[in-house]
């Protein structure tokens, strides 16, 4: 009702709450890549059709009806869009080696001390800076550096023991 009378603060709050509800609604019904697009579409519809909301009735069913309508609309569009069958011999990169390396690395990391393994995971695999990793692990920067250095040395010797190339 506040939105219909032009109360911007109330409207922003309403749209924010509606958007989080919409994300949750569509995340269970659509592929993740579409969730934001459809949620945006519903927010736009909610804006343009806000005069159709009857303030005497609850807001939830009104929003849910629009969300459902847009969901069905999107499903229909997905059904109608042309899809080509992929050929059997489609060239694609072979990820087997990368998957195997990740598996071996995880097995070796599991044999390190947790502090060393965590520091290596955050900085060398996830790409965090030393400072960010220190904050995340609740350690000093120098301790993180020491853990990474010792951990990598340990990893190297473990890899040699297992017969993996460095």
């Amino acid at each position, binding site marked *: 009702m506040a*939105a*219909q*009378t*032009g109360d*911007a603060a109330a*409207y*922003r709050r309403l*749209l*924010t709450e509606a*958007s989080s509800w919409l*994300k949750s609604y569509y995340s269970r019904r659509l592929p993740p890549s579409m969730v*934001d697009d459809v*949620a*945006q579409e519903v*927010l*736009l*519809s909610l*804006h*343009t*059709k*806000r*005069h*159709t*909301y*009857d*303030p005497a*009735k609850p807001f939830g*069913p*009104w929003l849910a*009806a*629009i969300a*459902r*309508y847009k969901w069905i*609309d999107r499903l229909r569009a997905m059904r109608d869009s042309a899809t080509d069958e992929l050929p059997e011999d489609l060239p694609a990169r072979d990820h087997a080696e990368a998957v195997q390396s990740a598996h071996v690395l995880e097995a070796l990391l599991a044999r390190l001390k947790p502090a060393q393994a965590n520091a290596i995971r955050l900085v060398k695999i996830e790409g965090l800076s030393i400072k960010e990793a220190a904050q995340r692990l609740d350690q000093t920067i120098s301790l993180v550096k020491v853990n990474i250095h010792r951990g990598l040395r340990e990893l190297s010797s473990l890899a040699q023991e297992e017969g993996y190339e460095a």
Partner: protein
Amino acid sequence: MRLDSLIEQLTEDLAPVRPRRLWLDGAIVALIAAVELALLFAIGFARLDMHRMMTQPTMSWRLGSFSLISVVSGWLAIRSFDPTYSVRGALRWLLLIIAICAVCGMFLSGAPAGVVSIISRLDWRSGVDCASKIVLLSVPPLVGLALLGRRGAPTDMRRTPLLVGVSAAAWGAFAFVFSCPFNDPLYIVVWYGIGCGLVTLVSRFVLPRFARW
């Protein structure tokens, strides 16, 4: 992040709006229908023997049936422009009303004598003319309801156009009753039914493209 910026944009664009009023939508459609009927009478569209015809039971049946169907379906159509309104149950009741009206007409008609009699009673040349006039007379309320539907937020794009089509078609048939030279209920059920069916079909397939939002 994109959602946040959209929310900011929509908040900046916010302007007060007047909530939709059902009675106002109903009044607009009623006004369109009344103006159409007044214009038809003004140009001498009505039968010359209207006073005598008004005493005939088939005339009362036609006027009563089509006005009832038109008003009920028009009201349901206007309500269906609300996204939360469920059209399914409404459409069922409307079909029941239409069936009762048609059955009443068949009782007035009496049993047909044979196939030849039925064919002569149907008089297809006049029937096609009647059906096409009903289609033309349905256009003003159809356009009015379609514009209201576009302004509203219908969510059932299959059934809402049917309600709109039935309402406009029934109004077209109601207006045509004043000019129709035929009183045979069999003829009326068949040819009026074809005219109304055409309008409903057009509404069913055209309105979703026009009113989609």
